[in-house]
């Protein structure tokens, strides 16, 4: 099976905060990581490769430093990588991102399966996967939590996709695109040989011209949505600790909750 994984380099969101004074992102000390959900996509691809053979390729769209993210997945066992990078791609929304990825992936050739993480933790949109599938005219299944079976002869696979109230068992024809949730597997560790390879591997960079994109469809120009304002969320900032012995605390709590109308208990 030839599998392609789409990854994204993101800032480690737990460190990201907006400075309420200046309304700017505090960036100092914020590390770049591979989007955690994408690592599950990589693991899924590697497990399928272990079982079925073939190759695993990873691509990303991003600034030149995004090659670090690609090197990281190589250390886990990804065979080949490619970086789609051009100033013209900057400011892309999910539509323009999916368009650019689709152009790049078409350049790289055919794949049996494309796997993405369910969403990126910086944007949290979960839109690029389905959008990419549509751009490539592929069937897709989102939020996959388990691969039930693959039949290469009939070119079909069956998966479980997580729903809000349980899960659906869905069959798709191949090639297809999946987005995966964390539940699907447990990450392996990188290998020393992989790390050595990652250090040396030559990462091909594809520019807008290489991908033959329509200049009006990439980056900010190609984006339908525009961010007009960013601001810090209202802090909750109450931090009220109830005083007293356990009994007293519980009384205060239940009285408070009743007053807040979130609990219908009559406390005398």
């Amino acid at each position, binding site marked *: 099976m030839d599998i392609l994984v789409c990854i994204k380099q993101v800032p480690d969101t737990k460190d990201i905060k907006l400075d309420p004074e200046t309304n700017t*992102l505090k960036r100092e000390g914020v590390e770049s990581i591979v989007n955690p959900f994408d690592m599950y996509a990589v693991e899924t691809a590697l497990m399928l490769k272990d079982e079925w053979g073939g190759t695993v390729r990873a691509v990303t769209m991003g600034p030149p430093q995004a090659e670090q993210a690609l090197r990281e997945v190589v250390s886990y066992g990804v065979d080949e990588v490619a970086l789609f990078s051009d100033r013209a791609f900057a400011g892309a929304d999910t539509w323009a991102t999916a368009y650019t990825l689709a152009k790049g992936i078409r350049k790289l050739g055919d794949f049996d399966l494309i796997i993405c993480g369910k969403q990126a933790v910086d944007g949290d949109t979960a839109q690029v996967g389905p959008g990419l599938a549509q751009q490539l005219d592929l069937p897709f299944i989102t939020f996959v939590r388990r691969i039930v079976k693959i039949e290469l002869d009939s070119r079909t696979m069956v998966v479980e996709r997580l729903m809000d109230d*349980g899960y659906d068992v869905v069959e798709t024809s191949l090639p297809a695109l999946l987005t995966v949730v*964390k539940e699907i597997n447990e990450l392996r560790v990188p290998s020393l040989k992989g790390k050595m390879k990652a250090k040396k591997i030559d990462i091909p960079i594809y520019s807008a011209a290489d991908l033959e994109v329509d200049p009006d469809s990439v980056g900010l120009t*190609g984006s339908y*949505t525009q961010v007009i304002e960013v601001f810090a969320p209202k802090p909750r900032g109450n931090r*009220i600790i109830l005083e007293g012995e356990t*009994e007293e605390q519980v009384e205060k*709590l239940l009285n408070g909750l009743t007053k807040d109308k979130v609990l219908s208990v009559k406390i005398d």
Partner: protein
Amino acid sequence: MCLFIDPDLCTACEACVESCPFGAITLVDDLAQADETCNLCGACEDVCPVQAITIEKKTGAPAADGYEGVWIFAEHRQGKLAQVAFELLGEGRRLADQLGVALGAVLFGHDVKEEADQLFAYGADTVYLADDPALAGFTDDMYGVLLAKMINEHQPEIVLCGATSIGRSFIPKVATILGTGLTADCTGLGIRSSDRLLLQTRPAFGGNIMATIVCPAGRPQMATVRTRVFRRGPYQEGRKGELVEIDVARKNIVSRTRLLEVVTDLSEKVNLAEADVLVAGGRGLGEEKNFDLLRELADLLNAGVGASRGAVDAGWISYAHQVGQTGKTVSPKLYIACGISGAVQHQVGMQSSDVIVAINKDPNAPIFDVANYGLVGDLFDIVPLMIKRIKTARS
């Protein structure tokens, strides 16, 4: 490159440097310069006192021509309208009234016609009903292509859908087919009076920042909306509207995926997004069987049971219950966190709850930072006492 800084106009006042939310602008030789981290958000353009900064934005024809009306997708699953459908009707009604246009509700399913009355009663002027065996279960191809065709035909200016597993899956496909913008997971909507654009506000970076987004050129303007963010509108008995029935078979849609089975987790409520009350447990529970204590409280409160990543990783409860960055985002009326320390990754999944109760024996646990009621103590003392007090109060 789409960000231009005019060297003849720039006075090196640094207003743009301070305004940049991404820290992408620096002064080099007394001239402002943007580096690769610039994502062209435009914050600097607004603050520049000498208009030295311009950003080339997608202009395109104002696509609003001919597009009119607000649509909501009334999600229906397993014989039941999703809660978010009513919330969307409430919010959609408000937006439609502000714009002076009609509110349409789209209903997909099989044998679901009688649900249309409810949609009218909660504010829909028109219900677009696609009732067909092929829509009995959810598949992205059927739902996506059908909705895209309907939108092309009727041309609403706004389409809203719940940010549910279903909405977050097929709506991006619809937006891609139509070639328009889509904003995910909105928590606030409004209309900009100057140009009737839909203002879509959503959290990003794990909830650490909020962003307001518009879609000036693409139509319709599409957004998915988080469950439990908006209030459902008033129920108006006997309210009627126009029912438009769609002939699904004539649309000739072929699905490349096939729904084989729907498995509902009946063991307990896992639809955390819809629960009014959530009782969640973390590492502090110590072991799997102690979740029974939380289940007892949850049953009393008709609540769902959530969990921290720690508890899920320990194998005490399934992933479907996980709240937080790598799990689900919830915003119930009441969230009771028991033995959860409240790492940032957990907080982003629950901090928009109306009321948060934190029970933890460590007074320094970060969960208390977001709590409306913090109880420092042993959850094995506190929770049983709560159960007892609620039971006596009710009897």
